[in-house]
């Protein structure tokens, strides 16, 4: 275990050095992360105002709280591996990784966590400013705050492993952007990114219960907003554990098959 811890620490130093090299793109990236939820927030606030101050169980202030917390949850769980993997396969960078005596996912997880550690404080500051600007606040029960931390970590892990697995489509096809695009659309609607899931049609809600996306975004957000009962939270955590196991099994199977395909036709 210790060598892995060292690997994570060393990767943190490397990522830090790289991020200082890419300060400008870091700023652009942050703006993007902020802008998307901000747009939905404003749209839904306008809708709520025009329909008498609320939509479903969401008031204007509730929408603001929802999308501000969502911005943070998305920030913590976000990955960019699907863009990266295709490039690695195409440029042959993956070959170098395959020659290393460590599973390449570790460097990726470490890199992701490292850059989050650096960007998270900025996002929290932006979230606080937004909360003031939109006159909103959250007041969850102490148990919900306590539960939020493992729930967020599980959401990160599942999202990371799932997207890392999906990224391996690059082993089989050079046109992964179509796959990525379908995934992002599904994610957008079924995770609660575009609107709180309770406001979506019944069929979509049922579908969202069966798919992983909801447990990665909507569930942690609603938990912190204090909208879930303890039982609902426990069910959610159960679903997360289920998806964690599924995603790990998928990862192992797909990775093995992917490497086999890669090494069959030439790296």
């Amino acid at each position: 275990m210790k060598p892995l811890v060292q690997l994570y620490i060393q990767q943190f130093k490397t990522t830090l050095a790289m991020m200082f090299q890419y300060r400008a793109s870091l700023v652009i990236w942050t703006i993007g992360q902020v802008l998307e939820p901000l747009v939905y927030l404003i749209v839904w606030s306008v809708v709520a105002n025009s329909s008498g101050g609320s939509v479903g169980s969401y008031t204007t202030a509730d929408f603001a709280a929802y999308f501000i917390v969502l911005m943070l949850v998305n920030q913590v769980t976000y990955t960019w591996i699907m863009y990266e993997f295709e490039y690695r396969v195409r440029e042959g960078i993956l070959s170098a990784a395959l020659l290393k005596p460590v599973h390449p996912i570790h460097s990726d997880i470490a890199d992701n966590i490292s850059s989050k550690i650096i960007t998270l404080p900025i996002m929290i500051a932006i979230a606080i400013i937004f909360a003031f600007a939109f006159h909103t606040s959250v007041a969850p029960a102490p148990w919900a705050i306590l539960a939020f931390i493992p729930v967020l970590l599980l959401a990160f892990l599942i999202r990371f492993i799932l997207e890392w697995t999906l990224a391996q489509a690059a082993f089989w096809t050079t046109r992964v952007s179509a796959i990525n695009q379908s995934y992002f659309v599904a994610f957008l609607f079924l995770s609660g990114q575009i609107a709180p899931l309770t406001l979506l049609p019944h069929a979509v809600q049922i579908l969202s219960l069966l798919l992983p996306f909801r447990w990665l975004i909507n569930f942690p957000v609603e938990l912190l907003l204090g909208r879930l009962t303890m039982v609902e939270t426990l069910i959610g955590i159960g679903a997360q554990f289920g998806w964690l196991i599924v995603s790990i099994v998928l990862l192992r199977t797909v990775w093995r098959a992917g490497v086999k395909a890669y090494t069959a036709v030439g790296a």
Partner: protein
Amino acid sequence: MSEEKDNPMAYAIHVRDLSKFYVVTQQETGTKAAFQNLVHRRKVEVRAVDGISFDIEPGEIVGFLGPNGAGKTTTLKMLTGLLHPTSGELSVLGYVPSKREAAFLRQITLVMGQRNQLVWDIPAELTFELNRVIYRIPPDSYRSMVTELTELLDLGSLLKKPVRNLSLGERMKCEIAVALLHRPGVVFLDEPTIGLDVTMQQRIRTFITQYNQRFGATVLLTSHYMADVATLCKRVLVIHHGKLLFDGELSGLLRQFTSHKTIIIQLDNCKADLSNYGEIESYEDGKYTLRVPKTETARVTERLLAELPVIDLLVEDPPIEEVIARVFAQEEK
């Protein structure tokens, strides 16, 4: 002794009847052909490596020669576990490379002249540190290796500069260093000197010899620069169209494939017709280059000296590039 030789484990690298075939779909151009392709694609089997066998002893430096597409890189990739062989037997340090076991990967390295593992925007030092933890190199051993590599490759302050600010040669030195931090016992080098100037090529060559001597490492190297092979390798493997054409000492290759010698003579300020002495290959600044059958060399030299005002005379083996080119040309026929 012979029993030991039969044991593949006694070799650093053991290869028997190794093959790698690819199936590629061939597409013909044109609209009609495009529609035909939709229904039926013509599949063609490409034999990148076609039943090669060789053994390499621990500590040997072996050169791997062949034109582009001969199967050199495919073989290196199979030896490092990046490619699964179609058939044949393969072991490196007793491991089956395609299993990609951590214990195996910790003992080998592959340096590709056109690919790199250093992170572009940060100093090489940081990639070094990353490899230290990835290969679990103990701190003492890491420090001494960095010192040693810095000295041998004259790295100086290069490790502290962002990689993108290094020249091609400087970067290659750092690439080689980072690939050797874990003291691999088997080193695969694919075109390590490609694109480098002559001084830098020499520096890298010297280094490879030093590394081989200091650590008793086995080295398998491919290169387009014959000088690399001529200075580094006593033994060469020649591969063409996926088949092994020659395995033996470099001098043996010359002997086997050259039937001629080259005589370079300079005459005292006069032009003469030398065509009855041998085949004239070139004439430049009073210097003639003659191609003479090996068996005739002594006789022709004698005649030249006796009959012409010779200032200088030199008998040489044809350049190794030429020999190799001729070997491949013969194969084409």
